[in-house]
């Protein structure tokens, strides 16, 4: 069969060759592998001896994207930190495609300075080189930024390592001394800090597109309420507290509206609130449950979960016309969908053989792939570049967070402190070095 395929490909190649010119060979397929990169330990001043080596943070970022296989430093033949010290031959022998070198020093103003250069080994070229500067407490922000630059230069896709995740940490849930907190951490799970805590449950946190505000559901008054909070100042505003459900707040892509679920008129329906004047517009009218809204990138559609067909499935509503279209057809339980950037792919919770997984669907080809293997996977939230997603799962009865690359190749768990970790939400792209952004865990 393989022989037949090969000769078929060859025929195709010949056909194409004839059409193009007398001497063209057409390469129509490839074997995509993880990119081999060497992140050489950065030359670092002794004043940073207590910090985690910056190259380690960068390597871990790239590795957990699933698209890179960083070379362990034990296998390196040389440790250049200046462009003049890089000999491509040393790296070609090791099969390394890219080399990232750097050095860290302290500037006159006391800031931490990182100089880095990225090389393309096989094409023997320098690809990018820059110097970054930030306060000492932004050590990890600097490392994540270097990883973002390298990721984008090599893959052509914007890096999302300089981002944050929100999640709910529950302690002693269901007991009289239960406590809940809303936590924000780096995308690698480090530097968590508490944004809000309560004796009553907190749910459904999500980000405004500017990354400066968040919305969530709080039961602090004994009833569910939708709250919007400014991250830097901590200022909170209670937006809705209607009778019944006040749930699943999600900001529109332009940040001016909030989609939500309210049951004030009977059963759960999807609403959109204009944040400037707080006016509500009801979008769905059905005796079934309509819940878990999210927006398309262009703000023209709302994706939501509904059991109007008898079982929970994903539907799409066009805001201009209120026309509703069903998107999922495989399986008897599909819920909490999110669209990938580009709008052609969907991720959602999918039940298969009685077990809940995270699935990915190509909307044009109707192709569904299961990305996670653990049971009880829920609440998928996408990185802003669509390359990874974070979800909640269970480990020995405890809630933890898992991350999977969108091609399903790499999965890892984020370290969780004591308690159940639930409902993660990945931030939009953030400018963490701008100075106006709050760093975590200082």
């Amino acid at each position: 069969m393989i022989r037949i395929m090969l000769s078929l490909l060859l025929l195709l190649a010949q056909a194409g060759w004839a059409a193009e010119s007398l001497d063209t060979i057409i390469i129509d397929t490839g074997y995509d592998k993880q990119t081999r990169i060497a992140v050489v330990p950065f030359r670092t001043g002794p004043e940073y001896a207590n910090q985690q080596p910056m190259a380690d943070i960068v390597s871990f970022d790239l590795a957990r994207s699933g698209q890179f296989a960083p070379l362990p430093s034990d296998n390196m033949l040389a440790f250049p930190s200046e462009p003049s010290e890089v000999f491509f031959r040393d790296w070609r022998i090791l099969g390394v495609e890219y080399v990232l070198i750097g050095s860290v020093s302290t500037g006159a103003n006391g800031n931490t300075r990182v100089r880095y250069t990225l090389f393309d080994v096989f094409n023997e070229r320098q690809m990018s080189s820059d110097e970054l500067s930030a306060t000492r407490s932004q050590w990890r922000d600097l490392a994540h930024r270097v990883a973002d630059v390298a990721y984008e230069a090599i893959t052509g896709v914007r890096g999302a390592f300089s981002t944050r995740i929100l999640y709910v940490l529950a302690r002693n849930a269901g007991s009289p001394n239960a406590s809940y907190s809303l936590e924000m951490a780096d995308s690698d799970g480090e530097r968590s800090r508490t944004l809000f805590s309560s004796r009553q449950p907190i749910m459904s946190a999500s980000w405004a597109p500017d990354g400066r505000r968040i919305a969530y559901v709080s039961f602090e008054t004994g009833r569910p309420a939708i709250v919007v909070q400014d991250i830097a100042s901590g200022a909170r505003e209670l937006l809705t507290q209607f009778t019944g459900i006040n749930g699943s707040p999600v900001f529109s892509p332009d940040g001016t509206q909030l989609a939500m679920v309210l049951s004030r008129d009977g059963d759960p329906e999807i609403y959109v609130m204009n944040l400037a004047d707080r006016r509500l517009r009801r979008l769905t009218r059905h005796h079934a449950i309509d819940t878990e809204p999210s927006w398309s990138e262009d703000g023209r559609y709302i994706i939501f979960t509904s059991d109007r067909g008898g079982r929970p499935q994903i539907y799409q509503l066009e805001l201009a016309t209120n026309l509703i279209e069903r998107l999922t057809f495989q399986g008897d339980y599909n819920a909490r969908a999110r669209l990938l950037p580009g709008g052609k792919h969907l991720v959602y919770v999918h039940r298969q053989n009685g077990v809940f997984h995270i699935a990915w669907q190509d909307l044009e080809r109707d192709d569904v792939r299961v990305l996670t293997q653990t049971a009880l996977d829920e609440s998928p939230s996408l990185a802003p570049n669509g390359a990874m997603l974070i979800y909640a799962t269970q480990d020995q009865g405890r809630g933890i967070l898992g991350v999977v690359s969108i091609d399903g190749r790499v999965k890892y768990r984020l370290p969780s402190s004591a308690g159940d970790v639930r409902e993660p939400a990945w931030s939009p792209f953030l400018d963490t070095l701008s100075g106006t952004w709050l760093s975590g865990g200082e």
Partner: protein
Amino acid sequence: MAQSYRQRIYETVVANWSRPPSARNGMEASLLVELVPTGDIVNVTLVRSSGNTAFDRSAESAVRKARRFDVPKESEIFERYFRRFTLLFRPEDLLR
């Protein structure tokens, strides 16, 4: 006979070609490859860009990784088909 050498070049480049996640079916990049009679690659030039730098670079790397191709010893055939030839990178097997 030139055909079997062409097939081996095709297979070598295909095996070396790892596409970036930004690659899409239908993108096209053309490279001009220049060899010496030993088959060693002396020059790879991008003659038509796909418009995506990462895609172009992946194609160029796929050729350069090979370092040399098997070429016929007969100098007439070498000169005619293998001294200079074009590789057109046009993926058809990607998921998107």
